[in-house]
């Protein structure tokens, strides 16, 4: 079971991912709707894993990722993205993201990512 911080600017997306996670025994300990909040909540709640949307206003996911990696270089961050953002994903991986999942979320993929990242 992993404690997860869910970051996405669409409340709808957050609920979706939350449902997938909680239905499979993981715990969503916090949610954030932009990069800035994500950093605050990361510090406050120390989650095992972060799922991070890329396109957000008020600091996007890549910047938030970088900031989090500065706070904890072993942070486990999974980027959430949709088709057409390949370049962003490459940036994110270079900046330390461990994995990425693609919208629309398939529960299997989300869980696979969480399982693999926590096993490492």
């Amino acid at each position, binding site marked *: 079971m992993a404690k997860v911080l869910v970051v996405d600017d669409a409340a709808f997306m957050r609920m979706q991912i939350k449902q997938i996670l909680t239905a499979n025994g993981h715990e969503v300990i916090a949610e954030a709707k932009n990069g800035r909040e994500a950093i605050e909540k990361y510090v406050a709640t120390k989650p095992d894993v972060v799922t991070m949307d890329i396109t957000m206003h008020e600091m996007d996911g890549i910047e938030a990722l970088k900031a989090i990696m500065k706070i904890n270089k072993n942070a486990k961050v999974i980027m959430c993205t949709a*088709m057409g953002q*390949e370049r962003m994903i490459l940036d994110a991986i270079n900046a330390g993201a461990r994995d990425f999942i693609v919208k629309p979320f398939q529960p299997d*993929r989300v869980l696979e990512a969480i399982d693999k990242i926590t096993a490492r």
Partner: protein
Amino acid sequence: MDTDSYLSLFIDESREYLQAINDHLLLLEKNPHNPDIISEIFRSAHTLKGMAASMGFEGIASVTHSMENVFEKIRSNQLIADEMLIDTVFAVIRVLEQVLDDIAEGGEPEADFCRLSDTLDEIVRTDPGKKEASQPGQVQEEMDEYGRRVMAKAGEMGYSAYQITVRLHKDCQLKGARAYMVFAALENCGEVIQTVPPVEELEEGLFDDQFTLLFLTKAEQNQIKNLLLDISEVQEVKMEKPAVSPASGGTEKAGDNPETSGAWPVFSKNGTNTIRVQVERIDELLNLFEELIIQRGRLETIAETLKNRELDENVEDIKRTSSQMQTLLLSLRMVPVGQVFNRFPRMVRELARELEKKVDLQIYGEDTELDRLVLDEIRDLLVHMIRNSMDHGIEPPEERRKRGKAEAGTLILRAYHSGNHVFIEIEDNGAGLNREKIAGKAVEKGLLTAEEAAFLPDEEIFQWVFASGFSTADKVSDVSGRGVGLDAVKNKIESLGGHLHVTSREGEGTIFSIQLPLTLSIISSLLVKVEGHTFAIPLSSIIRTYILGPDEILRVGRMRAMDLRGQVIPLIPLSEVLELSAGDKSNEETAVVVVKKGEQLAGLMVDSFIGQREIVIKSLGRYLGEVFGFSGATILGDGRIALVLDPNAFISQ
């Protein structure tokens, strides 16, 4: 997945995004090339697509996907947002709004989605068609001479070569990025020599579901395999040792490519045009370069004393090369201000809604480049200032109408280069600053006397808006007006070596102008001597220098002044201001450095000029903090320390 419970949330958010697209289409009509608007529409369509697909509304997803494609093309300048295009997108948006209404009322979405997508796809179809995905071939056959040679060489050096075939889940999306993760993992423990299909195609995702690569490593086979299987969506990893016979066919082309034979290891023979480098490394490089500049200064000093022609020439060469290096190094850290600006349209729109004002944001010069460090620092400041302008500057629509202005206020964000500086201006055509109010407040706070308030020019009165705890807002809003802010903004900008100015006309608007140095650390300066001390004056603020005879110095009471082409400007004797003791030198010639701050000029009186030097500014450190008149210190060629004067401090006196 149970999606019904999210339905209302989905509908609400989708409506917002459709509205956003609507708004930006209107803007796009006026500025068909503005990349911010295009990006914004793209982003909204993109978010919509993701949400709709998650809810199982395939129709909406496919239409928004097509819409995204259209704007991707516009963004990359392959398509122009003409009237027809915008009309078409508007029509599509209207249908989507209708569809959302249908869904909200519990009905099934009814629309001819295929036709809508087709209409949009039709627009896009001007492109020559995508590259066909390469078929994964036999790596053995396609491995070229180069690969074979590298492998043979690797064997000699104790590396093992593996031919690795990675198969991804067949419904894996973003295959390119996944392949990249495979590379990233492998690069940590060895060297990827070759791939089939080629790296470029792999990174673009142009392959079926598997790819093959040739890998050199000292790591164990199982270790590598597990590493790869640990990556999400990697279904299967096959590893085998390729049969290498260095002699096989190795002779026929051996001479083809002599320059690569010794260059091992190299990732790809088709070198890419860009590489990614960590910012820290560039910073480190720049630090080292600064040290080099200090040593160069030292060398210059030595050369001047020795007066050896060969040495002089050599020093000149070093100066030339290092200044080219400096330009190049600094350009590595430059980023376009657009990176920050592009967030503002949406912020402005939201804020306008919140404040119930109409604001038309115009952005110019987003390609202007600025040091990344500086840009990072001013991001929040800009947000603050935009909020300030929208809250206090631009009037509510009724009031604007009463004053005979267009209902929508204009907010202009402008960036441009000038000399060694970047200027960022935030201009609004709102109410402007109220001289009486500001002066009144300053007097009330005891910052000014009533007489001063009466005769000071507008310019100087307006600068009080930057004083701390100074707010003339009639009402405090959530956005701003609490009197904290502008002073903090000004302090921050000055700590970056920049300046913040305000000009305003009541009833017509206000311009805040931020002047920032292109870079923070290395500047050109004039070294001067005052009472045996050496000081550096930044060239950027120097207009010119003079040598004045005793009779050219005008005396106005106790003040001294000079005549600069018909304009009388004050003279500031540095030795007195800095309390370095001043003998009476009224009979000697005086060296004067004319400096400017905004429109104001003044002459700094010094004993002599030493010459122009590139200097590296170091901060005075925490113990000294802010010292009046100095912006830092530098190490001179002879190892002594010189203080760097901040001419602005003397002018505002």
